[in-house]
């Protein structure tokens, strides 16, 4: 398994802290100072969503469609 990209690490770190987050929540958190050291993508968010989808393919997080859009969650244990 290849090393996680910086954007993927950013998404994982954000999801580790929260339970079930929407795409907008992840993108907003990625711009906060507390994640600034690791989350450095463009504000448009494309790169984070691409990274999040790769994490889904690797089985590290899940994505579920519901009211308002997708909700993302880390796969624990």
């Amino acid at each position, binding site marked *: 398994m290849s090393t996680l990209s910086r954007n993927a690490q950013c998404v994982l770190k954000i999801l580790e802290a929260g339970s079930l987050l*929407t795409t907008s*929540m992840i*993108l907003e958190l990625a711009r906060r100072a507390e994640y600034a050291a690791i989350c450095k993508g463009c504000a448009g968010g*494309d790169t984070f*969503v691409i990274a999040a989808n790769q994490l889904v393919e690797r089985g590290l997080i899940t994505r579920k*469609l*519901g*009211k308002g859009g*997708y909700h993302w969650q880390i796969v624990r244990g």
Partner: protein
Amino acid sequence: MDDRQWARVRSDFPVLKRKINGRPIVYLDSACMALKPRQVISAMNEYYEQFPACAGRSIHRLGEEASNAYSEAREKFARFINAAKPGECIWTRNATESLNLVANSVRIPKGSKIVTTSLEHHSGSLPFVERAKKSGLKLEVIKARDDGTFDIEDWKRALDSTTKLVSIVHSSNVTGTLAPLKEIVEIAHDRGAVVVSDDAQYAPHHPLDVQHLDVDLSAISVHKMCGPTGMGVLYGKMDLLESMDMFLVGGNTVSDVKFEDGRIVPSYLPPPQKFEAGLQNYAGAIGAGAAAEYLQKIGMHEVEKRERQLLRIMLEGLKELGPVHVLGPDDLNLRTGLATFVIDTVESAHDIATFLNDRYAVMIRSGWHCVGPFHYQLGIPPSKGTARASIYIYNNETDISTFLRGLRALVEQTS
């Protein structure tokens, strides 16, 4: 052209024969990257397979064939935009590089003004923001209306005798709005300013006649018009190009480089060579010429007409969906073939793109499309963004109906 002829055009694009998870591809992201027809791929392959040599340098047979193909490509491109001379077309890497070349090379006296708009792609605004900072110039930003149109009175007010350069997006990659370029050029010329038009979205979809528009400079991305990636064009009126400073210098840009009294003394070639430093992307230029020729054979008026037919179906379908809001004016004559929208029931535009891709193999773009200022103007934060479906010559009614079916399902599942 009838549906049968458009189906033949569609069959020129090999990638559309692919299926993903058993579904045919519905490609609606041409405003970002257009697909490539086999004619363009063949032209580039021919270079690599038959004469992969240096153009304009090597005197052997392969060099001669490469030189001929390279200069024919420039002629084809000049015909495509109706430039007065092939030498008015400079090869660049993309429209962004073309705009940076302009921002860094046009001579502007200190204290003068550059005018741009809130609707520009970052590539149409940032090079001028930086130039203004570097050269002590004033930068005035004309605010587009929220539908992406302009009030011409704003242009008359903003452009004054101190204005030396205007950067304007001819067709917006967000609202799809067409700017009244000819009118703006007239106002600018009246004030003594030159106009650079960002034609990245206009050139692939509409007949572009630089002489008719009287525009001074025009930036084009070839990858959006069926050509290869990493290729762009800067058109410029010859006298203006001659007066501009070089952007990159080095091999191929000089007529002579003397060594006099311990100093290196260069003499530069006229345009286009003075702007094309170093070994060029010959295959890319040949591909660009092939793309221009391919589109011209179809006819740019036909392309425009076809896209508007499909856009009409798309916009009507989007309206029927209910919680969908499309940016841009209702008048199709003011639009290029794209629809940018938000859905009330979906928080982030990225979710729209993800859903359509996963479930329907429908490919659209989401985010802020490198137009941050206009999204902020509309109160749309980057985390929400907008979704954009863009149409090109290979799309058909089935593509539009699959796209609308996907959106209908998304609205149902997120409500």
